[in-house]
């Protein structure tokens, strides 16, 4: 077996994809809230804070997912065997 074959990419478990997924969900929630709520943005003055926050969250989410695609992390085979609880002292 060559060195290449003993590695595979982290895929869905790459922490960047997890960050992208969570922030992406939040972005969708905020954009929908911003579009649906007809309540005037009383608290925030002229700013449509929910809509803008949603858009920014979506952009950040996309950046993380793209980053993970462009530069995938290689995981050595059998890495999980070293896994486990961390000491917390």
């Amino acid at each position, binding site marked *: 077996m060559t060195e290449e074959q003993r590695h*595979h990419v*982290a*895929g*869905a*478990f*790459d*922490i960047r994809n*997890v*960050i992208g*997924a*969570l*922030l992406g*969900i*939040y972005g969708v*929630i*905020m954009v929908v*809230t*911003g579009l649906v*709520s007809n309540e005037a*943005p009383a*608290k*925030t*003055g002229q*700013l449509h*804070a*929910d809509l803008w*926050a949603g858009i920014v*969250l979506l952009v*950040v989410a996309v950046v993380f997912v793209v980053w993970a695609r462009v530069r995938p*992390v290689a*995981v*050595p*085979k*059998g*890495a*999980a*065997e*070293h*896994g*486990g*609880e*961390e*000491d*917390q*002292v």
Partner: protein
Amino acid sequence: MTPLTIIHANAVDYLVLATYFVFVLGIGWLARAKVSDSVGFFLSGRSLPAWVTGLAFISANLGAVEIMGMSATGAQIGLPTVHYFWVGAIPAMLFLGVVMMPFYYGSKVRSVPEFMLRRFGPPAHLVNSLLFAVAQLLIAGVNLYLLGIIVHALLGWPLWLALVVAAVIVLSYITLGGLSAAIYNEVLQFFVIVAGLLPLTIIGLEKVGGWGGLEDKIRAAASAHQGIAPASQQLSSWPGQALSGFHSPFWSVVGIVFGLGFVLSFGYWTTNFVEVQRAMASNSISAGRKTPIIGAFPKMFIPFITVVPGMIAAVVVTEIAHLKAGGHPAGGASGSGVTYNDALLYLMRDLLPNGLIGIAITGLLASFMAGMAANISAFNTVLSYDLWGSYVAKDRADSHYVKVGRIATVVATVIAIGTALVASNFSNVMDYLQTLFGFFNAPLFATFIIGMFWKRMTPTAGWVGLVAGTLAALVVAILTKGTLGGLSTGLIGIGGQGAAFLCAAAAFVVDAVLSVGLSAVTTPKPASELRGLVYSETPREERTDPDEATYPWYQRTLPLAGVALAMVIVLNAIF
């Protein structure tokens, strides 16, 4: 009074909160089930890129102290609060990366009690383990208290009930495996907190008319009321009398630089192994050294999402402005009157639309919960292995210690409810935490740093220094004004943060003097037993990275540290 809640959360906010916990508990479940090599990879450590460990490094610290304490202090005294970051954190983080980390990474030391045991022997180990256990319980109480006031703010329950409920939530978080993927969670948590707090700063500044508008409003409030810090002190970080409590600008600078910048912060960052372990999870000595240095870059901008919202709250939120003007507004998250600790929650009420409230609440709950869980877990480890396993019941089966650990977790949570009630007596939790750090971190830092660089330091000096240093801090705390509430006599006319600096300085000096003095008259350990424990006895190849020189400059430790230092100096000059 009807149980009016401070924060009006709706279904969208709870959806945001629930989504986060599905993620965190899901990752915890994957971690324990070890369903994938990839999960193991991200948990096993020794393989993570430096940006991940760097973010985990500051996120592990971005908890109760940073968020609530810094916004409370920002509301109370304004801009000098930034010293906790630019003087009180960055230099120590850079020092940790440049000087200490190669040594930690190279030696086999993995915890402070372990270092004490091998460097100084059982007496110092016992003293340190006991102090560490007590410190974790007290700090867990601060986290629990802050969790409790959020539950109270959301649901309007009385504080004692909120504390019990929060404690049950933390216990289930630990039981469901919330800590098994700590690094994963910390990095996620970091982004959620930033997403929740950044809108506060932006919307807040928009509302007061930008930075200039904020300055004008603080000036107006300060000139209208005697007894609060003058606007000139609130709007400029130096010389920071409002922070140190010293009248003389000269002594104020000395107090901040030596007390906060040196003793407290070097003590905190270089001996805090909850933090140091994040760096240990990286893939090389070079990445380990870069972990705190990369963390320093986001860290220096955290004040803009914690201190600045606090300052905004003091002029925008009616209750906080009233409190600062010397009033005693009713309400507050504890239900027994508004305190500075409530600044951020009130600002969220006034500025954030639903949805964003959910993100902010999620970030706060996540970080306090993870913080308290880490305290409880650290207590648990020290109690069952360092104390119970070394001094009470040696050489039992593993199942015995696991059982002790389980009981310790539950007992610690119950005790934390008590220490949370103690924390609730302080109008600003930051004062309380700094005092605790003075007791526990300052003497530890003196013993640690001398023991690490001076091979002549003896085992007797190790434990006597720790005991005497802690007692010195306690005596100073009793002599100052209000540091320990009713216990303090006020003989030294300094209170607040200045008193905490004084406690820390006293602890450090007494510990250092006794350590050096006693070492002169007692017998040191032979040099052969000090390999990996004392700098000069650790071979150079165990603490250097051969690949470091081949990286481009922006991936090397020293140039990165230089850039961070330059940026902090610029920030200090601007504000």
